[in-house]
């Protein structure tokens, strides 16, 4: 209950913000045969948190992977600031200001924490001063990482590894960060820390796209929520809309086994 009160629901915030990233009627498939996205449309507004929820296999992770260029849409477009980025490869996304923390572990386990962060700075690796500055910023945000900077990333706890991944995504000062289940398999206390941290990102000028199985957390933190099923849109609205719209409430209760009150 305490968390609910803490949550800011600036109802007008979403409506007033401009759309920065937009997926329009996207169809995508793995290896050309198994179709996962079947005409999905998602708009992401600047400096907001856009939540994506849905049952298992709804295509949430695939939606992020497609936005990040690991899959290319067979139909439809993905636009960043109105520019088509549908066919960019994943390694060009960072240069375009988009960072990604995928669901499965994305660290280099046999490299030290610091080396992981330094590889995150690959884009500007020749600018030593900037690299040092960005590393210090990450260490300031996650002091535990400074302590463990020389440890192998693989030896860290699940929560600490998440911190490294978040830190590594933020060193490039992205405009948009995409998070896929940031607290899956992570202890509740650390989960809360991570959610509190995510909530601060829009204030730093970072737009968040959040995919989460944890509907309660996602609805609490997000400014706007999309519900996916079978690779299509099934519903959307601000957190406030969800609280009032009986149809949406019912849908969430039915599919996701979660009661919005």
């Amino acid at each position, binding site marked *: 209950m305490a968390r609910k009160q803490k949550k800011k629901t600036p109802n007008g915030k979403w409506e007033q913000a401009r759309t920065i990233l937009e997926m329009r009627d996207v169809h995508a498939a793995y290896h050309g045969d198994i179709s996962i996205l079947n005409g999905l449309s998602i708009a992401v507004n600047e400096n907001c948190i856009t939540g994506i929820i849905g049952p298992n296999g709804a295509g949430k992770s695939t939606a992020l992977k497609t936005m990040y260029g690991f899959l290319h849409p067979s139909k439809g477009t993905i636009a960043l600031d109105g520019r088509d980025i549908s066919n960019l490869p994943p390694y060009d996304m960072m240069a375009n200001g988009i960072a990604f923390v995928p669901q499965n572990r994305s660290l280099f386990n046999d*490299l030290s924490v610091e080396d992981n962060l330094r590889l995150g700075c690959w884009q500007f690796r020749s600018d030593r001063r900037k690299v040092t500055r960005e590393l210090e910023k990450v260490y300031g945000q996650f002091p535990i990482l400074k302590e463990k900077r020389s440890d192998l990333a693989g030896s860290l706890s699940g929560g600490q590894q998440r911190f490294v991944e978040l830190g590594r995504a933020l060193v490039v000062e992205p405009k948009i960060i995409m998070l896929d289940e940031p607290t899956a398999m992570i202890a509740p206390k650390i989960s809360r820390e991570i959610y509190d941290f995510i909530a601060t990102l829009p204030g730093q000028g970072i737009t968040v796209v959040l995919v989460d199985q944890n509907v309660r957390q996602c609805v609490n933190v997000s400014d706007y929520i999309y519900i996916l099923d079978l690779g299509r849109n099934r519903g959307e609205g601000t957190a406030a809309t969800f609280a009032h719209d009986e149809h949406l409430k019912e849908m969430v209760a039915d599919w996701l086994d979660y009661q919005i009150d």
Partner: protein
Amino acid sequence: MISEVLLWNAIIGGVVFGAVYALIGCSLNVLAGVLRVINFAHGEFVIAGSFFSYALLNSFDIHPLVALPICAAAFFFAGIGLYYLLVPRLAHSDEPETASFLLMFGVSLMAVSVITWIFEADIRPMNFSFEPINVTLFKIPDAYGPGRDGRVLVPTARLVALVVNLGLIAALTWFFYRTLPGKALRATTMNREAVQIVGINIHRLSAMAFGLATALAGITGVLLALVVPSIDPNGGPDIALVGFIVIVLGGLGHPVGALFAGIIFGFVEQFSNLLLPQAAAQMVGFIILVAVIFVRPEGLFGKGQLK
């Protein structure tokens, strides 16, 4: 009773050949780890390096030591060209490893044909010289009876090859463990998807890796020509097999593992030549290979899972 001199010769031979094997293993590891390409044609690349040095020696009188950097540069760019010609197509395959094996087998067959077409199928001698021809490492007093000292000799060419070889391995280790591009290559072995997430152009990095591995193969060929100054155009498969034994022994994708495994294999080979009948000696390497696969499939130094 084996004479002390022979024993020392086997030890020195083990180190000299072992270092060459380690270099073969290192470059195969780069390809297997970064590109997931099992390079069946690696032996032919090495032989091509030997012939490159042979051609420079016979046509322009360029000493193999001078040929070394020329060969490295030429093979580096040839490797990058070959990468863009061949490897991106493998990505369309459902099983890139298997496809790469077949593809590189084809490349190997073509390479042998091209080499024998240009240089003919004869074994070629390398006519270079070092002054002095041999270096006496030390004397063993009364090795052949009272008053007849034994001398432990090593051909100067082998000694030079060993020094160059060890220097290269040290440089490679430094590159992989101390520089950011080296760490990026190792990172690719650990997590291919994440390398792209941090904004590394995986195709450019892979092309570099292929160039590096090909350059190493060429260098290995020149060094091999120094160690054994006769070049067999059909020797490729033997070299590739030694390389595979070394990377299985050392752990796939483990750069330092390949170094130790190369030396171990060098010793095993030299000592089995010394102690066992010739026919039996040739089996020992493969017995080790099979034994490692049974007992410790991740290799002596690998700790991860082998796919």
